[in-house]
């Protein structure tokens, strides 16, 4: 069953348009939502969390915002690239707000995360470090029943240990098969570790949405000398990068095996994304 269904999402801003974005995410999976700065990632995520209004329809676990806004918002847990808590409040006040608004909020679980991550109870949020703020956002969403976590650059700027712990938490979150994560990040290494699906967006348009395995099996990273490049071969290459010593590009195995003499290797998600975006420039 699809937990998240996005259909024909469109939004126009001066100089930018999100164009007919459609995708679905089944329960129990993590989707990486990637693209360059300004590609439309945050616009899409803001539409899903209903921070911005877009044309199109969005359903979370079969619920549309227009039909039941409270249930829809209860189903979402959002972690942004910066803390969204009112900076003048302290942790106790945040707990009180969450208790007032979320019917499934469990204060004892929230306290468990607070103790585990040693977050100061009385200090104002504005005094928290970036890592502490991210932990607080995670504590607030993991201590209630959500169906979908929406993460917008949530792991940026975190130290490797915290990042590792958070990636572990995300995998644990989806482990019962009833919940999903939509994860926008520039750290594609994180997606390599935990994502099941990759969605690439560029200039407001969907480029692809495939399983990670399918992507890794579709492309090869090709390297060779400049003398090997013929105009015909160039046409088959994706995101060709030439330098003084040779070239590097992606090659789709759908075109058959790469020509003999070229070095080929399995690319990383990072390399696939970079070469595809390079190819579209």
């Amino acid at each position, binding site marked *: 069953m699809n937990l998240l269904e996005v259909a024909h999402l469109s939004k126009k801003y001066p100089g930018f348009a999100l164009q007919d974005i459609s995708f679905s995410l089944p329960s129990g999976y993590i989707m990486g939502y990637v693209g360059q700065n300004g590609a439309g990632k945050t616009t899409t995520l803001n539409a899903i969390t209903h921070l911005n209004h877009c044309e199109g329809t969005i359903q979370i676990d079969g619920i549309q915002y227009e039909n039941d806004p409270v249930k829809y918002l209860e189903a979402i847990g959002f972690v942004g690239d910066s803390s969204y808590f009112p900076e003048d409040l302290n942790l106790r006040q945040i707990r009180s*707000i969450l208790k007032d608004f979320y019917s499934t909020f469990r204060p004892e679980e929230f306290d468990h995360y607070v103790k585990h991550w040693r977050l100061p109870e009385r200090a104002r949020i504005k005094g928290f470090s970036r890592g502490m703020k991210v932990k607080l956002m995670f504590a607030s969403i993991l201590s209630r029943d959500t169906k979908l976590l929406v993460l917008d650059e949530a792991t940026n700027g975190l130290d490797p240990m915290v990042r590792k712990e958070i990636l572990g938490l995300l995998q644990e979150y989806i482990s019962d098969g009833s919940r999903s994560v939509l994860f926008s990040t520039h750290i594609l290494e994180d997606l390599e570790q935990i994502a099941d699906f990759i969605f690439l967006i560029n200039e407001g348009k969907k480029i692809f949405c495939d399983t990670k395995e399918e992507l890794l099996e579709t492309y090869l990273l090709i390297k060779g000398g400049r003398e090997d490049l013929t105009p015909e071969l160039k046409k088959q290459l994706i995101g060709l990068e030439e330098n003084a010593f040779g070239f590097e590009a992606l090659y789709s195995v759908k075109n058959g095996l790469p020509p003999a003499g070229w070095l080929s290797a399995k690319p990383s998600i990072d390399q696939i994304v970079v070469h595809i975006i390079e190819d579209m420039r």
Partner: protein
Amino acid sequence: MKILNYAKIDFMKLKDYAWFLLFPVLSCVLVLQDPSAPLYVCVLYSLFGGVVCASLPFASETRAAAGFLQLLPSRDGDNIRGHFLFSSFIQITSLVLGLAASFVVRLFQPQLPFVSLNTCGLMFSFSLVLVGIQNLMYVIFRYQAAKAVVFIRLLPAFLFFYGGLLTNKYLTTPAFSDIAAWILNPGSLILTVLCPILYLLMAQAGAALSTRKGL
């Protein structure tokens, strides 16, 4: 219920603006120093403090913090209705504190007549409309040129204050006292009832505008 919860968040932030409680105290001092000043000045000063303070806890909120409020499960625009509810609580508190201050002053100057209910009602209702205008300005201008917005937002409060002072100054002139008498007697009841209704309409308009604008 959710609207009340949103107002509660503004109260949590009010701690930093507790200085507005000084306005009634200040009004006591000023009225005691000027024996010719009528007692309603206490209420006027206190309501002025309320108008200044009624939108401060949320007027300077960041886009991210506003996003947090919008993510909380509720109906569209409830966060804005919550701000309006908070502001009305502040004005009620200011009215009560202003009246308390006037009673304190009267202990020392028993010759002064009590503030009439008409005057209180009218001043309160008028202050509510000014707060409503400020809150609408907040909805329209939020996240744009922060300093200019603060100035524009506080303008109604100062108009209220200086308007009140001018009223006090000219109330004794025959032409003005006739107008004042008309407002304070037959018109006051209508205005006292109309202003809160206008305030409710402004809250609804603010909620609708905020929903339409998005974050």
